């Protein structure tokens, strides 16, 4: 079981969000999610400048087995996408909480959106329940 970094917050649907020092938010999918999907072979990224709403699809990750939507944990404008993933989608399998980040947004409703997310303990508890 991989350690879940303490500075992340999670959606039930396995996306993570991290508030950076400059106030932007980095978004990815959890290590648990990449494990469920298996070997990733394609990531469809949004465009820089796209506006995201909470819970709306912001990317698609595809493994050999299945395609899965990535939902935005916070609202805001996309200011950076991890274009390295288009050649190396497996980076998400290798480092879901680090080099496998997907997008960075400039949040429009940061405090409220973050409060609605799960902290690492609550997310870990959800995973335990899923395993039952």
């Amino acid at each position, binding site marked *: 079981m991989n350690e879940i970094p303490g500075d992340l917050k999670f959606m039930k649907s396995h996306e993570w969000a991290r508030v950076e020092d400059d106030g932007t938010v980095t978004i990815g999918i959890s290590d648990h999610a990449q494990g469920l999907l*298996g*070997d990733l*072979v*394609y990531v*469809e990224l949004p465009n820089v400048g796209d506006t995201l709403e909470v819970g709306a699809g912001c990317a*698609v990750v*595809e493994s*050999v*087995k299945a*395609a899965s939507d990535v939902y935005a944990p916070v609202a805001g404008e996309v200011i950076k996408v991890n274009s390295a993933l*288009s050649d190396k989608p497996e980076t998400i399998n290798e480092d879901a909480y680090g080099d496998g980040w997907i997008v960075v947004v400039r949040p429009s409703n940061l405090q409220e959106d973050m409060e609605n997310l799960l902290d690492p303990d609550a997310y870990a508890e959800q995973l335990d329940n899923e395993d039952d």
Partner: protein
Amino acid sequence: MSKQTVLNATHRALGAKMVDFGGWDMPISYGSQIEEHHAVRRDAGMFDVSHMTVVDLEGERVRDFLRQLVANSVDKLKTPGKALYTCMLNADGGVIDDLIIYSRADGAFRLVVNAATRDKDLAWIGREAAPFAVQVRERPELSIIAVQGPNARAKVQGLLSPELAAKAAKIGKFVACEGDGLFIGRTGYTGEDGYEIIVPQEQAVEFWNRLQAAGVTPAGLGARDTLRLEAGMNLYGQDMDETVSPYEAALAWTVALDEGRDFTGRSALEQQKAAGVPRTMIGLVMDEKGVLRHGQRVVTANGDGEILSGTFSPTLGKAIAFARVPAGDPGAVQVDIRGKLVPVRVVSFPFVRDGKACDGV
């Protein structure tokens, strides 16, 4: 409660991710599905396919029975050990299942049919066999391990008695031999050389462990699916079913319209052939990034079709698929992926054979 093969605990001990497949609890992968795929293409991998159903047929008129039961001709099986891939059709020419028939000594035959269709297959075969007084015996006490890859045969032979190893080394493709309680067919579902080995279930775990010790990589149903699609092989239920004739599933090569053999579905196939087969199955390759998936809409010059089997091909590094589309020259073909029309190329298949991309793919 899903059914388990005798290797279930072995898979779990190896850390396999398990899924339901046709009512069976089966390993989809043990780690990286793509690495398992490459292990089969480059070296040797093994699959527990004990969920598949082995059926033995005996009786004086068993050959006559098989002449009626299946669309390919068992008269091609002239010597014991020879194997035949065929479809079993209903009266409308729809595919009830695809299967392999092995001829055995003393005029007996062995069928291997799909797991998901077991119940209806056994019911159909039993009913059709009755007038021929053929004895139909399912063999649930047998396990099947497929060992596939360029080094598969050598690794298996190293574990057999000298006599059986010599026999197994000699058999040609699509031929089986037997000995020491093992049934060894040089068949498979990956596009690589190798064996499918039917082994008494009380010996299966030990045999699996010996294969692993000999350097054969355990591989799950995930890799099996990408390997068979690269090899241009159909999956029952996805690429064909009872609403589809062999002609619409790129299986014309398995239909023998030999003279005087009135197999079930023959007249329907002849009518379809005379009237023109309305749909055809084609191979697709997508050069753009992304993955082709079952159910996606396929746009052709003659109207829409759909993706049957679609996946990411680990050998080619791009998406491949089978699609069923209206007959005729499809022109420039596009696939609807999440609302975006993406161009694809129509190619002949197999896509990959013996470890390499086929010409034109």
